[in-house]
């Protein structure tokens, strides 16, 4: 009899508490990322990346004290079917404070059968690093291949459909249909459906101590008038290199993580690498506002990769090493125009080696010191970077 009673009382308790079960007490979740930096360079020349048109937020950063990506994110389950998130990045560009919508999307959480649909503005699922926020990266800046091909990160507006297979091994397949207005696309061609991706990810564990993931991805766009803002020349009339044509990027990425018996709190190691190749065919014009600007046909072959390892050798402390490399072989009917557009590699293969050490006082704060030997352009540079990244607000759940 006492058993009966205890079951009944426990049940009523259970029912009462599931009714009020919720993710947390804040609705929606509001989180703030604070990112401040200090940079020191060895040389003063303007930054360029020979063989690549720079765009988006690509660059080597700023000298002296400056702010990085300060982000305000608001997210919550909208109802039992949708999840929504908005991230606004607040940054200074040449003295003006600008608010940029980095993400604004809804995502289904409960379609079932492994299916997920995301719509709005989001980080494309291409590559591995692209889906992570900059503040979750292990270095203060993006790998050169992300800088050269995506303007640091590929963000676009559109629709993503993905499916997780009901298998022992993790297998995710997906695709995106995107507007194609932001760098490295442009012009929102094809009636605002100018770009698209396909991606596959596969992953699993090996024993208790190892986890891995391998990804393949492909992005293509019909580019209309992609302008390069990052490349500047001192001249009379300002000429803006502008590309129109096809663009295809194919990439492979992997990450392998080790933690003794899966316990990452003391020591852990992460090895990750990505390789991308881009193929473009079209025309480049040097837009100077005139009726007949200089122009050339353009057949671009660009590729790049990076490999990085991060080791946490004791709680709070990590060190990391990254090697970056780019290569390009671009052809056109007018070599001079190509060179002016920054698409001539000048016989240079950009590379960079970066050392990083950081200290996390808690899960919410990180201080980082980074030094890069940067041979990404002719004037080799030593770049020292000090950074703090702090997150305020509820505990974020991070991707693998």
């Amino acid at each position: 009899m006492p058993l009966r009673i205890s079951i009944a009382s426990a049940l009523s308790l259970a029912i009462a508490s599931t009714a009020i079960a919720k993710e947390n007490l804040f609705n929606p979740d509001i989180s703030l990322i604070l990112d401040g930096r200090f940079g020191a360079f060895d040389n003063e020349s303007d930054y360029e990346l020979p063989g690549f048109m720079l765009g988006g937020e690509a660059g080597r950063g700023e000298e002296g004290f400056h702010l990085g990506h300060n982000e305000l994110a608001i997210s919550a389950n909208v109802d039992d079917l949708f999840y929504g998130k908005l991230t606004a990045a607040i940054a200074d560009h040449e003295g003006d404070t600008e608010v940029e919508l980095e993400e604004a999307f809804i995502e289904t959480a409960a379609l079932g059968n492994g299916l997920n649909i995301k719509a709005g503005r989001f980080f494309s699922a291409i590559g591995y690093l692209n889906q992570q926020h900059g503040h979750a990266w292990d270095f203060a800046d993006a790998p050169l291949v992300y800088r050269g091909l995506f303007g640091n990160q590929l963000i676009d507006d559109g629709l993503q459909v993905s499916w997780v297979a009901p298998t022992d091994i993790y297998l995710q397949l997906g695709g995106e249909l995107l507007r194609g207005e932001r760098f490295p696309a442009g012009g929102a061609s094809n009636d605002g459906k100018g770009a698209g991706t396909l991606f596959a990810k596969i992953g699993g564990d090996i024993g208790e101590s190892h986890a891995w993931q391998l990804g393949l991805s492909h992005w293509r766009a019909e580019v209309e008038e992609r302008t390069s803002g990052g490349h500047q020349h001192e001249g009379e009339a300002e000429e803006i290199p502008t590309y129109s044509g096809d663009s295809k990027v194919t990439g492979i990425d992997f990450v392998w993580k080790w933690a003794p018996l899966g316990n990452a709190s003391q020591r852990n190691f992460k090895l990750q690498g990505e390789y991308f190749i881009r193929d473009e065919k079209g025309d480049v014009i040097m837009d100077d506002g005139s009726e007949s600007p200089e122009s050339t046909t353009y057949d671009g072959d660009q590729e790049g990769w990076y490999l990085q390892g991060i080791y946490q050798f004791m709680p709070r402390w990590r060190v990391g090493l990254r090697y970056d490399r780019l290569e390009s072989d671009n052809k056109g009917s007018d070599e001079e125009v190509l060179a002016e557009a920054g698409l001539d590699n000048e016989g240079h293969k950009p590379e960079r080696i970066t050392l990083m050490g950081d200290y996390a006082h808690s899960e919410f704060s990180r201080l980082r010191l980074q030094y890069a030997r940067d041979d990404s352009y002719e004037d080799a540079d030593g770049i020292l970077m000090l950074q703090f990244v702090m997150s305020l607000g509820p505990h974020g759940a991070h991707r693998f």
Partner: protein
Amino acid sequence: MIHMYRILLSIIAMGLAGSSAAALNVFACEPEWASLTRVLGGDQVEVVSATTAHQDPHRIEARPSLIAKVRRADLLVCSGAELEIGWLPMLQRQAGNRKVMPGQVGYFAAADQVGRLGIPDRIDRSMGDVHASGNPHVHLDPRRLKTIATALGERLASLDSSNAAHYRERLASFILRWDEAMMRWQERAQPLRGKRLVVHHQDWEYLFDWLGIVKAGSLEPKPGVPASSGHLAKLKKALLAEPSLAIIHTHYQSPKAARRLSQLTGIPAVELPYTVGGAENVVDLFTLFDETLQRLLEVVP
């Protein structure tokens, strides 16, 4: 002939049962819930545990293998109360499995079934990694565990109603054995009542609540913040004024801080199993409490 036919049928049925395995695929976030689900479900459940006793359930990554497991689960059995907040919501979002989303019958949060300790009056990160829903380590109080077992047994019965009788039977048998064990433990634990213990992290609030043990300090100055030498010196001073029985930590926490304080004060450092698999002889929830009491009683003078 009919006889032969029957045998053949039953062989086929057995083969089918073998290939389709158990009725319910259960994803347990921690070993204690995996163990409890196995006890209550028997051969009708196929249970995987997302974490082992070697891992801190608060610091797990949303690994691909875990996404694949959540994808195929009929039921998640987790602690809740934000213990898994750094990874479980990401798994649920990525797996695309409607059945196991919060609020669905396929999501069982143990901490939701019981009254919780340590619910803060206010939330401020300067207090460390505190959680609005209170302390999530609820399995270390056998009384609460009984309530949770009851709710879980009923949950299994409602999810897999064709086997409801099977789950209820197993639940009743578990409760009988558990009540017996609780009486035995309470008697054995008498010498621990009112004793003071230094903890590593706030994992033990519920055990202390049950046994009437007093927390004499914490190696982490604040939840989630590692011990510093300055903090250990302060603890030492406090412990010299008012000693404690032992300094306790789990298997997944580094024993360094506990050992250092032990050297400074002469108070023994004791590793407790914390969950199923946390010590060699801790193979289920019964042996978990047997061993925990055993190790604590060993240091009682």
